[in-house]
């Protein structure tokens, strides 16, 4: 076609179509939608950009709108809850954000969760680092089967572990009596963070293993000759150079444990003094005769804050770790 039409001077079919569209446009009596569709067809780049914006907008709305609606519900006074709108609260009662701490010691629930998630993250990173070092940097017989075995444990649904663990944690162990008043792990933070650490460990091992295996052997050798042990080389050289991986594993573990529902709700009796996590606190606003939706919503928003802050901080670390191009040599 381009051969018969030298005026266009271009073989690109889209340009051809665009020219054609421009030329023929006045002749056709098209509606606005038809005209728009024709433009899209002649210039697919526009359609792609459009799709991108639509998808992004859709994603943002589906993720952020629930938060907004939580805020709307939280701000609605208790008596107007039945009239709550979609976009605007029925009334304005910021007091709900204070009430949650008065009605219940919600701060204690958040603290419990925060502590459990922090301990779990530290434990997972520590054990995961050791395992990641071994799987990523040492060669030994049985490495592959063992790695597979570790990964297999993460294939089971967490619920599968619940009953045996619950029985175990409710058993009185005399050895524990001096440490824990009841002698059993039920109603202690250990009952939550032990199973959760174990469940989220394989993923962290896998992430850390991949990162640690990429640190050149020479750096570890250099550290050991300079005066560290193997462990010292791991924590002074390999871990700092794998900062993005460590941050990723840490953030994933923290968020997962902090937000976890199943073990969190079943391994304690739900009282704040029994180390019940944040989730139990939110559910406590649900009474026998009444559900205080505004307080539940306010509590949910407060509970999200620590994680949001953590992600923002860690994000910066991850980005800085990536851009410094640490692992070059």
């Amino acid at each position, binding site marked *: 076609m381009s051969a018969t039409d030298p005026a266009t001077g271009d073989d690109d079919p889209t340009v051809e179509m665009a020219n054609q569209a421009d030329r023929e446009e006045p002749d056709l009596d098209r509606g606005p939608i038809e005209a728009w569709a024709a433009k899209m067809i002649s210039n697919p780049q526009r359609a792609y950009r459009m799709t991108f914006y639509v998808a992004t907008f859709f994603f943002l709305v589906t993720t952020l709108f629930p938060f907004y609606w939580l805020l709307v519900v939280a701000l609605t006074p208790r008596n107007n809850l039945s009239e709550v709108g979609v976009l605007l609260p029925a009334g304005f009662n910021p007091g709900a954000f204070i009430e949650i701490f008065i009605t219940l010691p919600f701060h204690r629930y958040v603290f419990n969760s925060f502590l459990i998630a922090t301990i779990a993250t530290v434990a997972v990173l520590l054990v995961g680092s050791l395992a990641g070092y071994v799987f990523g940097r040492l060669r030994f017989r049985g490495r592959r089967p063992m790695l597979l075995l570790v990964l297999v444990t993460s294939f089971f649904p967490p619920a599968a572990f619940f009953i045996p663990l619950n029985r175990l944690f409710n058993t009185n162990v005399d050895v524990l009596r001096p440490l824990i008043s009841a002698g059993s792990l039920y109603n202690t933070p250990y009952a939550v963070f032990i199973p959760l650490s174990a469940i989220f460990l394989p993923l962290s091992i896998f992430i850390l293993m991949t990162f640690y295996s990429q640190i050149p052997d*020479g*750096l570890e050798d*250099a550290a050991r000759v*300079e*005066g560290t*042990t193997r462990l010292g080389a791991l924590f002074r*050289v390999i871990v700092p150079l794998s900062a993005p991986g460590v941050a990723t594993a840490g953030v994933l573990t923290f968020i997962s444990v902090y937000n976890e529902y199943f073990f969190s709700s079943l391994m304690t009796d739900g009282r704040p003094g029994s180390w019940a996590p944040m989730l139990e606190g939110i559910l406590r606003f649900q009474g026998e005769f009444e559900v205080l939706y505004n307080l539940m919503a306010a509590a949910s928003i407060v509970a999200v804050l620590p994680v949001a802050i953590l992600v923002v901080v860690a994000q910066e670390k991850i980005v800085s770790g990536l851009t410094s191009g*640490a692992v070059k040599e």
Partner: protein
Amino acid sequence: MASVTLSGVTKRYEDVTAVDDMNLEIDDGEFVTFVGPSGCGKSTTMETIAGLTLPTEGTIEIGGRDVTDLPPKDRGISMVFQNIALFPHMDVYDNISFGLRLRKYDQTEVDRRVEEAADIVQLDGMMDRMPSEMSGGQRQRVAIARAIVRQPEAFLMDEPLANLDAELKVHMRTQLQRLHRELDTTIIYVTHDQAQAMTMSDRIAVINGGVLQQVAPPLECYNEPANRFVAGFIGSPAMNFLEAEVRDGGFESQHTSVDFDPAAHGVRPGQEVTAGVRPEDVYLSRDAEAAGSPTEAFDAVVDVIEPMGSEVFVYLLFDRDVETSVEGRGEGQLLVNLDPDTEVSEGDDVRVVLDRKKTHLFDRASGDAITHSIE
């Protein structure tokens, strides 16, 4: 400063023996180079000295102390690595002072020592640079400063110049010799480059297939190689070899025959030997008087000429039918190192002689040297 002694060091991996019964004594303050082709076990030997690899058998002593089972940090050694191995997340100061800080030295002492080390390798004013902001040569100097700052009993250097460009390599070579003179410390150096080994070392340890072939000063390795491998490895370009058989009053190869007295040099007629002669010990017969003790002349054809400026390498064929191989110099080929003024051109017929005084004989089966002169 200390001596280093290896006794019966052997390293086996599954079914591969990387280092086989290595016995070596390195004196205090000596510069010894381990040299050999890639995969010969020289790096593994060094790693056993450093403690990064534990030997399967044998013991290692540093300064008279058995360190075989000590971790690297307690051996009093420091090391410069092939890939330089600076810690990329630390600046120059932190890199150099890493070992001192781990050993809990006093801050003023750390500062003093770092400054001194940086001074020796001329790194002043770069203390807060990151390794990624430095050139290859600068990084290498930081690595050396990190090694000398702890004033170790011995330095181990594993191909430290391998990643530098040719010009810098030559420059660092002289720098390292000066450093050795200044510090007067035992240095063990690993390289596959025989030129580095020749130029820097007090003694060379030639290793092949995990077995120590010869330990001797560079010129001794060059002039009196212990076996055929050392003869072929040390010296560039490599020695010419002729497969020959001893007969009454001389030896005979496919293309040459040379007269000498077998009995006087420990060979008997009928013995299969390899004759070796370095390119610079082959002469055109018209220059035969330059050879100390020229052999009979034999015919050859000029194949390829490589002018190097100060000298010219001429590849000869014993006759025009010899097939050349891409894999290296074969039987029937002879490399001659001639004066650049010599007038030869490709395809010329020439007559050449060998210098009897510099002709080596090796036992064909074992490769061991029999004699280094057949005069």
